[in-house]
């Protein structure tokens, strides 16, 4: 106990740490895994490759999305599922992924987030919790169409948080 009751109050709530974890089997295995990966050339990880491919696709899709928006004058076209991206987090620098090719037909212009939710674990891994709500916003500063986790916010608020314009449904 110190003479600072505010920080004492915080300390009193401290959960158990991970003392001794490093020397546990899981800790040793994790270190081995790190050293193995460190010895492997960088771009061979499936996840890295997937994100790199997704990033490349994002550039194409974001550019293409602009053309559709201007030429079509409608927020979502019939084939928009092939040109939209799903963002992993509600952040300007979030990882982006295109839909798996066989998921494009599942795209519903009235509910653009549904297909991201349905294919979430396939895109981001089985341990990634699926967001409960999504917001469709143009890529900040651009015209590409991206569906972002809404973090419990309404679409306008979610888009505003990342400095983006919302995309109307339909």
């Amino acid at each position, binding site marked *: *106990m110190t*003479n*600072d*009751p*505010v*920080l*004492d*109050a*915080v*300390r*009193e*709530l*401290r*959960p*158990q*740490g*991970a*003392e*001794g*974890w*490093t020397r546990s089997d*899981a*800790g040793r295995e*994790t*270190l081995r*895994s*790190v*050293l193995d*990966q*460190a*010895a492997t050339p*960088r771009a061979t990880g499936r996840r890295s490759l997937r994100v790199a491919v997704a990033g490349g696709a994002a550039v194409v899709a974001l550019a293409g999305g602009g053309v559709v928006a201007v030429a079509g004058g409608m927020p979502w076209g019939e084939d928009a599922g092939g040109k939209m991206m799903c963002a*992993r*987090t*509600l*952040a300007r620098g*979030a*990882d982006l992924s295109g839909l798996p090719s066989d998921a494009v037909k599942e795209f519903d212009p009235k509910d653009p987030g549904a297909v991201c939710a349905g294919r979430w674990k396939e895109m981001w891994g089985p*341990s*990634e*919790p699926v*967001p409960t709500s999504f917001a469709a916003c143009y890529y900040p500063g651009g015209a590409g169409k991206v569906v972002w*986790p809404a*973090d*419990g916010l309404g679409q306008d608020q979610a888009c505003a948080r990342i400095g983006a314009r919302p995309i109307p449904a339909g």
Partner: protein
Amino acid sequence: MTAREGPRGHELVEEWYEAHADRVMGYLMHRTDRETAQDVLSETFLLAWRKQRSVPDDALPWLLAAARRLLANRVRSDVRRQALAERISAVMDRAPQEVFEDRIGDREHVFRVLMALSEADREVLLLTGWYDLSAQQAAKALGCTRAAYTLRLHRARKRFRAALERRPASFTPLDSEVHA
């Protein structure tokens, strides 16, 4: 592969791991499930290996900062908050109540106030109160200057204290014991 990325680089990573993995893992386990914590820990030390020229001699704040960023990219803030609430609840179930309830309020009240703070306020309080970091280390872990950290901590303490005092009129005012 450079000389530092070779065997010596592996030795460095092992040294950092032996010295700091428990604390980084503790930080992560307070905010997510064990499996994700292990994944993020692994990513953190792999990043340290890849960026070892940027890792300072005092590696802990760098590692915590990296783990914090990697976790933020993987786990949404509401999920991190929920995980934190669950970890603290487990402590509250086990630990005796009487330690400070006559000074500040009951543990349940403190818990509710802490969880009602903004994530930024909560983070600076927890980094300071839970992980025994110096001001310099905490600032680096948060990715800000020491002056900015001091200001953030001051404001977070002030808001936390004000919120704590809002309810239990029967408890001793905190100002009477702070000699900051």
